[in-house]
């Protein structure tokens, strides 16, 4: 390449041979002190220099790794343990609202909150699933599949009715939860989950919705058995409340014969819903088949009381500017 030939002449990798008496040249580079590769105006030459620099960095890194591995082998048993790589979950900022399982105040709070009748087995969950007005095919099919996943749920077509009018009627007919799937441009993108007698309302943004036919290697249709529920990683107080909301959708006694399990997995404030059928092939090996729809939820707000967007009081609202300042701080 005829590029940067002038600059190559400037780089020296050691003292000039035969020049023992003069001042020792700098080890690496004879650039003027403030020169950097980005100051070369010519893009081709700059790119070339950058590639050279990158190769050099890679070589150094490999050499360092090799050295470290040799040292580790040489030390054998006395080698220091391997450092754990930093991940965002490792580096998560400690949330002071993390629930301690032995906390009495939290236990009292939960014994007297809106879900207490469910957890005391006084009510049986009965869910109403509906959508925003005039849903398109994908949303309708999603609602039907969701109704097969959640036992004792009923899908109703929303005929442009106001939610505030639907809610008293649901309460009169003994429904315990209301799910509204919001649709935008023919795909479902939001979920409002409201616990009915006077319970909290959670508003989620829904993404990555996959219907049953879009799931690869899926099993057969889910059966009518009551599934087990897994709630993963809801550690903070807010996460606890949301976890309880999800748990209150399913009846208490799962039918293990059905071998079906619904999982709500929270990671980095995103809640992943999956529905599987499992089979124990041996003591330690389990095979799972994914059935049912899958979707991802992100909590936007938790409102105390039933759905009331105008005059409701919020227990938690996601305020992007204030809460999303740190990449390592999560709220659920």
């Amino acid at each position, binding site marked *: 390449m005829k590029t940067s030939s002038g600059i190559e002449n400037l780089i020296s990798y050691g003292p000039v041979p035969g020049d023992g008496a003069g001042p020792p040249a700098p080890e690496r580079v004879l650039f003027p002190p403030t020169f950097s590769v980005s100051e070369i105006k010519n893009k081709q030459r700059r790119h070339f220099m950058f590639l050279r620099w990158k190769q050099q960095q890679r070589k150094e890194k490999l050499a360092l790794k090799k050295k470290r591995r040799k040292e580790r082998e040489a030390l054998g048993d006395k080698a220091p343990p391997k450092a754990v790589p930093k991940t965002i979950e490792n580096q998560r900022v400690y949330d002071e609202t993390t629930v301690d399982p032995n906390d009495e105040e939290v236990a009292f709070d939960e014994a*007297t909150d809106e879900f207490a009748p469910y957890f005391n087995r006084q009510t049986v969950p009965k869910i109403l699933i509906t959508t925003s007005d005039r849903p398109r095919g994908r949303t309708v099919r999603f609602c039907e599949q969701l109704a097969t996943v959640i036992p004792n749920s009923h899908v109703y077509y929303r005929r442009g009715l106001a939610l505030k009018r639907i809610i008293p009627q649901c309460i009169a007919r003994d429904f315990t939860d209301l799910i509204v799937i919001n649709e935008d441009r023919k795909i479902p993108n939001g979920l409002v989950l409201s616990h009915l007698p006077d319970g909290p309302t959670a508003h989620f943004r829904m993404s990555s919705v996959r219907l049953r036919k879009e799931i690869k290697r899926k099993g057969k249709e889910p059966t009518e058995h009551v599934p087990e529920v897994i709630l993963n990683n809801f550690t903070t107080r807010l996460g606890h409340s949301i976890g309880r909301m999800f748990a209150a959708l399913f009846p208490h006694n799962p039918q293990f014969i059905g071998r079906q399990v619904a999982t709500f997995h929270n990671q980095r404030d995103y809640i992943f819903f999956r529905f599987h059928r499992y089979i124990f092939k041996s003591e330690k090996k389990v095979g799972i088949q994914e059935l049912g729809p899958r979707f991802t939820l992100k909590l936007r707000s938790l409102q105390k009381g039933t759905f009331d967007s105008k*005059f409701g*009081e*919020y227990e*938690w609202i996601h305020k992007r500017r204030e809460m999303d300042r740190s990449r390592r701080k999560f709220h659920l």
Partner: protein
Amino acid sequence: MLWGLLVGSLDRSVSVFSTEKGKFTGERLCPGGDGAFCGLGVSIVTAVESGLVRVWGDFGVTPPQFQPLQELQAGPGLCRMRQDPTRPHLVGTGGKENGLKVWDLQRPQEPLFRAKNVRNDWLDLRVPVWERDLQFLPGSQRVVTCTGHGQVRLYDPSTPQRRPVLDAAVGEAPLTALALIPGDTSVVVGSARGDVAVIDLRKGRVLRALKGFAGGVRGLQCHPRLPLVASVGLDRFLRVHQLRDGRLRDKVYLKSRLTCVLLSTHLDWEEPPPQKEVKDEEGDELWDALESVPTPRKAKKRKISGV
């Protein structure tokens, strides 16, 4: 004579918590009317959501003779009743479709001041009324209220004008808490969405917004001498902000959904309370009391923060 904090619960019992002894010292059931308490006052005045305001005597009297000394009907849908701290015989009431009324407890038939609704809006529609919280401004007869439609209103009973002297719109969310800033020209209001703003009462402008709230604000209180405001809300945190620059100074996680905060007038906890306060027990019952929230709970815990 008891002095301390009055705590009202959902089961309609009012208890007194003595701050010296650190425990509840008296409890009485105050029945009558429907709904939860929306206001408590000294020499035990109670108000409930159905509009019944009753004056009970002190707690020294045993239950069979514990009858209301006076009662008045303030109208249904009551949201708040407050007693004027400088003139304990005056109470103000306000609620949903129930405008501000200032009553003299000695004359329960007619309010001293009944507020009139503002003029129809630009579409010639009646502006709905929903007074959520009110405060008496010290040093004058004026009353400032905040509404569930996001307005802050200032009424002056000493003028013949029954409409609000100032009507300022602050956002769209319902304003659920109001606190006076010592100095008499501004107030702090908190909304159901967690937007807390400092409003100037002379012009009705927003001076400063306080940030950091994740949920609705239920209780606000300003410190009498330092420029600090303490706030509690449904997101289970107590926050202390500086009023001058709006910076959050402190944040404490308290595990329940909080409804009220009070600041102690004892500024220096090391000093014993001055002697004349102990003797002057009548005047010291200036503690505001706590209201209960219509959630399925039995008793409230309220937190005192001494700054």
